[in-house]
């Protein structure tokens, strides 16, 4: 206790900052989720857990939750596989490696909304270049192209592709950093023992990447789960709730229906889901421990 008091001047500012920009908003979110807030934003009193009952009772709630799981699993898995391949490539010395390494950062440096909009416009019928290209090479036979972003399935798939694209740089660099900590001796020893390249990678290199991969996956899960802009742009014009995840649904409650109370309730649910996933993951994989 005395140690804690002594440490207070050092950790105090950080604690104050966390309290103000993390704990306070979270508290407010929990508070709002139990209130009845009018469309114009006036607080009409507490309603207990009624908002949660409304949100969970919504007929599309479970499909939306299921779609969120698919969204997270597919995007994180594809990102991880792509990043492993990219990182292995970038770890080899070849002419122009520096340029390629720079190029990989580009999707990271560009604004997510901008990247998504570029793809979105490319997919527009009549004038989008992706559509024009597909029409020109004869894959689509309607002259105006296909409404990729007008159908729930295709729009969602394209959103996943964009999400993987923008998640690649961070994941690649995390794994690349991990690769560079793999001691050359272990690889050399494996080779002397007669292991081929594939065997060496899966039995020697990959196990040593456990730390890097588990951190990358953890951060990606949180990021992808909370991702709004990509889906918002790619699936925004689709009627109904057949392309929504929890995040876009929160946004629809807040922006379209202006039900801040319901949006808060769903945010609380999302918050608890993320905490749950992270807790399970941390227990099972122990990403923060040494190998």
């Amino acid at each position, binding site marked *: 206790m005395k140690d804690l008091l002594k440490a207070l*001047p*050092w950790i*105090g*500012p950080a604690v*104050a*900052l966390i*309290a*103000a*920009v993390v704990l*306070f908003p979270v508290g407010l979110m929990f508070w709002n989720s139990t209130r009845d*807030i*009018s*469309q*114009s*934003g*006036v*607080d009409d009193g507490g309603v207990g857990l009624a908002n949660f009952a*409304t949100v969970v009772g919504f007929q599309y709630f479970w499909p939306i939750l299921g779609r969120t799981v698919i969204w997270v699993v597919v995007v994180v898995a594809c990102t991880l596989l792509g990043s492993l391949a990219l990182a292995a490539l970038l770890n080899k010395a070849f002419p122009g490696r520096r340029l390629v390494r720079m190029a990989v950062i580009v999707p990271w440096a560009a604004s997510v909304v901008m990247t998504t909009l570029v793809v979105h416009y490319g997919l*527009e*019928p*009549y004038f989008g270049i992706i559509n024009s290209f597909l029409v020109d090479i004869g894959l689509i036979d*309607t*002259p*105006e192209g*296909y*409404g990729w*972003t*007008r*159908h729930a399935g295709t729009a969602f798939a394209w959103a996943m592709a964009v999400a993987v694209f923008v998640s690649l740089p961070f994941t690649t660099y995390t794994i690349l950093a991990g690769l560079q900590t793999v001691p050359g001796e272990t690889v050399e020893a494996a080779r002397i023992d007669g292991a081929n390249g594939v065997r060496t990678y899966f039995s020697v290199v990959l196990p040593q990447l456990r730390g890097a991969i588990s951190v990358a996956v953890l951060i990606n899960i949180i990021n992808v789960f909370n991702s709004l802009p990509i889906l918002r742009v790619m699936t*925004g*014009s*689709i*009627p*109904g*709730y057949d392309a929504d995840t929890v995040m876009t649904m929160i946004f*629809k409650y*807040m*922006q*379209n*229906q*202006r039900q*801040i109370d319901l949006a808060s309730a769903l945010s609380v649910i999302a918050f608890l889901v993320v905490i749950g996933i992270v807790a399970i993951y941390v227990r099972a994989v122990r990403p923060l421990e040494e190998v």
Partner: protein
Amino acid sequence: MAQYKRLGGIMAITLAATTGLTACGFGGSSGEATGDGTTLDLLVPSYSDATQGLWNDVIAGFEEANPDIDVNLQVESWDNLESVIATRIQGSDAPDIYNGGPFAGFADDELLYPVEDVTSDETFADFQPTFLENAEVGGTTYGLPWIASARALFVNDALLEEAGAEVPTTWDELLASAKQVSELGGGVAGYGMPLGSEEAQAEAAVWLWGGGGSFGDAESITVDTPENLEGAEFIKKMIDDGATQADAGATDRSPLFDIFVQGKLGMQVGLPPSVGQIESDNPDLEYSIHPIPTQDGEPFTLGVADHLMAFQNDGDKQEAITAFFDYLYTADVYVPWVQAEGFLPTTVSGSEALADEEALAPFLEVLPGAQFYPSTNPDWSAADSAFKALFGQLDSKKSAKDVLAEVQAQVDAG
């Protein structure tokens, strides 16, 4: 000891910075008077790229005439506007003057001044009576009609001629003409049907009301009715018969109108500003403007009026707000504003000033008989968003009846 001092300083700065952060979100007082004057906060949507400049001109003129009043301008996109106003009200930081769509919810929450309290008698008497009626909540006018628009059918004359189709006045003629144009091929579609989230409620009104239906009145919102079903069924028929562009259910209005301007659509319902858009983007387009086809051929138009409203806040700015509105609605200030944005005026003096404006003639003609959204019904916002989110499902396997029922259900859940 010196070290401790420095630490204390850092802590103080951090704490100050963080409390400053929270103050941003929940600040109670908004930029109060500078010196002895009053400051008016103005929150407006962006109608076009010119909007901000137009407001700046108005404000400069007003501040010159009233040196003791400052005006703060905040311009937001339509997409953000309603969440910005909700957030500001929740944070007890409502603007003094707000330009927006539905306002019955604000009136219900007793946040607004009645219009008569913030305008002089002359200004109040100058509004067109139909517009004032449309802005009443429980017998009191809470919104100042600001700009109006009406809808009409834009027809690509060249395409219709090529297809040998007639300009339609009834639904059956519309279906026939649109199919003829669609058969031209080459990416050309007969009728542009935007049921995407941007403005699905407008296309819904065009069809459902054109078939004799309505969205209800100030007391109740009725969407799921037999009259409305006829319009919804016909939308489905238009889509199923290939008379519209592909994916009508998820096509937004503005991008679709770009396609019309490019000359690839036979017909689409447009607004007064659409005239200006064609003028600047494709002046060679051969087009004409006609009344919207209806089931029985009786012309009708969907009128929309956006409103200004004055928030009470602390109740100490009534005089400044009155001065601002009186200045704003003088014909010399008001008419150039409305004209620059390509909309229609809501005042008698404004209409007189624009009487000989040729491009607006087809709209001014149909405006007196315009039907309005039931926007003074507190549930209208819910209905509006339900249409935006769900009405496009007519372009799917769902039946028209189910779609209307689903819209109604979301309205009732409100």
